[in-house]
């Protein structure tokens, strides 16, 4: 592959023979279609703007799910935060709120994500490292100390143990005098992509799907403003998914969750409005226009699926509500400050595509979890996009572009095709259980890496325009080595003051509810309130549900 400007000499040489024929660089879409040098009306044959776009805020929502979008409200600027102990995270939350952040996004450490307590030997090196450690309700209370939950929207990156964390959050709210119905936020709770890409699974797929349905059902009935699931594209993308797969795979996952709840007698219009998505932009495959087109196509495809396949009547079911994450995998270790520019472009794609919320990429992602400086810079990048560039002045500014509309059409067709292929092979859960999907993605990821190795995919500073100078190392975030000690001491204190009999009784009631197949939430609250640990609750459920065994995927 050559870059524009790189072939100037050849152009001049070939122009000698009379007719000027500049050398044209080849370009292909991520799904292998040649990209034309320019697009025109002939590329939009059969395209009907009334039918295929509609107005912003109306079916099929290609242009945006609300009529006025950023003219009424900018997207939520939501860097990912969470570290170490509850106090440190609470401090950082307050710092972020003071810097003008409008929502909280909480990361948990791996033990919390896997249902292991901080004093568990398996957790010994990971307590408080990638996020905050939460063992009991007590930690959650300190995490949100002084932060009024009725004024906050909190996003929790938690999956296998999402039900436990949600129960804790509801109880913290109650203690603050906030009724469950007032709580706003999201738990990720998207287990299928954990088996595919992120790896924090605990239970096998079947009981996991049931736990998720329990959570969705609880939210529908008790905390309707809280999103019980955020179906995520980001991890699947980091794992090698191509642009169309980055939508079709999360959609298949989402449909699997919806169907699980429909089986319980709910209607699609009760379930679908509760489901939100976390879409991806940027990354090593970044292509500005494809990213915009894929998200526009995703909105249209979701609206059509809900209406045509599931017979949804409520427009809320058809609105694809998504936040967007800029993929950290697109951030290079070489010349890390270049990543600020990448983060800005990834963010631009998300904003041009009409995201409602954005996790910007941080420049030090290839080194560690982001430092304060990197987080603040990522937030500033978003503020520059929102206040200095004018891209928020009109809704869906790329609509009507021959190129972007043509790409949007092609993307929707590819997404439908990849969904159909998996459905014809027995569905997404089967593909995951057998490991065929993971194998395919791992292969794609490998092929992509080889393209970088061969210089076919250009990464500035990595395989092109590299500098020879020794770089000054950047300052990276370091977890406090005392965290585990402090957190286990705190856990011990909680264990010492709780009523062990009450813990045992509530845990055994929880096991019974799990065995009977009842919704576990009514039995979960008393256990959490009795200060049973996340690890104890997880172990109780493991006794009933069993543990997942990975298939061979490589």
């Amino acid at each position: 592959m050559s870059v524009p400007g790189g072939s100037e000499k050849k152009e001049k040489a070939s122009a000698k023979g009379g007719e000027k024929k500049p050398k044209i660089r080849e370009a292909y879409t991520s799904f292998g279609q040649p990209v034309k040098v320019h697009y025109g009306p002939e590329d939009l044959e059969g395209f009907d703007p009334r039918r295929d776009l509609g107005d912003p805020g109306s079916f099929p929502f290609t242009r945006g799910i609300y009529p006025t979008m950023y003219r009424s409200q900018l997207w939520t600027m939501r860097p990912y935060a969470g570290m170490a102990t509850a106090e440190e995270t609470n401090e950082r939350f307050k710092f972020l709120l003071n810097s003008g952040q409008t929502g909280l996004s909480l990361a948990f450490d791996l033990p919390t994500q896997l249902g292991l307590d901080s004093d568990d030997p398996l957790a010994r090196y990971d307590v408080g490292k990638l996020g905050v450690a939460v063992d009991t309700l007590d930690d959650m209370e300190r995490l949100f100390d002084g932060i009024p939950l009725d004024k906050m929207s909190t996003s929790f990156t938690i999956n296998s143990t999402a039900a436990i964390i949600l129960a804790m959050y509801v109880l913290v709210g109650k203690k603050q005098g906030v009724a469950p119905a007032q709580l706003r936020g999201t738990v990720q709770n998207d287990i299928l992509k954990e088996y595919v890409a992120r790896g924090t699974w605990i239970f096998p797929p079947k009981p996991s799907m049931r736990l998720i349905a329990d959570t969705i059902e609880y939210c529908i009935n008790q905390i309707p403003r809280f999103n019980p699931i955020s179906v995520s594209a980001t991890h699947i993308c980091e794992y090698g998914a191509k642009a169309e797969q980055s939508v079709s795979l999360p959609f298949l996952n989402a449909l699997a969750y919806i169907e699980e709840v429909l089986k319980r007698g709910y209607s699609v219009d009760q379930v679908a409005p509760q489901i939100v998505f976390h879409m991806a932009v940027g990354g090593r495959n970044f292509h500005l226009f494809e990213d915009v087109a894929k998200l526009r196509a995703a909105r249209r495809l979701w609206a059509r699926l809900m209406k045509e396949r599931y017979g949804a009547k409520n427009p809320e079911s058809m609105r694809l509500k998504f936040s967007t994450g800029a993929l950290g995998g697109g951030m290079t270790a070489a010349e890390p400050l270049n990543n600020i520019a990448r983060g800005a472009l990834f963010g631009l794609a998300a904003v041009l595509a009409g995201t409602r919320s954005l996790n910007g990429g941080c420049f030090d992602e290839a080194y560690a979890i982001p430092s304060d400086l990197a987080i603040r810079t990522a937030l500033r990048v978003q503020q520059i996009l929102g206040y200095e560039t004018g891209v928020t002045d009109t809704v869906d500014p790329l609509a009507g572009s021959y190129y972007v509309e043509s790409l949007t059409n092609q993307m929707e067709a590819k997404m439908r095709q990849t969904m159909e292929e998996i459905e014809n092979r027995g569905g997404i859960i089967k593909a995951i259980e057998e490991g065929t999907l993971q194998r395919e993605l791992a292969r794609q990821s490998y092929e992509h890496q080889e393209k970088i190795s061969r210089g076919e995919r250009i990464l500035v500073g990595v395989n092109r325009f590299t500098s020879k100078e020794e770089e000054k190392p950047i300052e990276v975030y370091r977890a406090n080595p005392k965290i585990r000690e402090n957190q286990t001491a705190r856990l011990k204190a909680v264990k010492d003051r709780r009523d062990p009999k009450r813990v045992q009784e509530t845990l055994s009631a929880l096991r019974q509810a799990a065995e009977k197949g009842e919704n576990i939430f009514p039995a979960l609250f008393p256990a959490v309130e009795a200060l049973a640990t996340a690890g104890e609750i997880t172990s109780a459920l493991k006794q009933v549900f069993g543990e997942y065994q990975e298939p061979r995927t490589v």
Partner: protein
Amino acid sequence: MNERRPIRVLIAKPGLDGHDVGAKVIVNRLRNAGMEVIYTGLRQSTDKIISAAIQEDVDVLGLSILSGSHVELCQELMERFRGKGIRDILVIVGGIIPREDIPVLKNCGVDGVFPVHSTLEGVENFIREQVSKKRGEGLREKGPEI
């Protein structure tokens, strides 16, 4: 030890980290390069990794760690390796590893460190060179086997 035996590699994911796409990319690359590669899957204890490395008689152990626990995990693993008197397995580590940790890892006995965006050729070439060196040294120390 037979010099012409294909290089055998164990790629392992120690600790709780679930990000294994990098590990799988390496598995694919080394297999395509003619090596015999075994992948452990997620959440392996250091003891399990060591016994797999011994059982499979590997030349190379590759650890993939993106959770920030690389120093602790490598220290533990190398200590246990030494405890068992194992010195002829090449140990390499890849993942999200801050630059200033590279000497720390090497000090505890890791032979090679490959942070994200290391090249695939770099990893493969390092393994080839070091294994042939180790095989040579191994023969000298132990005297001819058979």
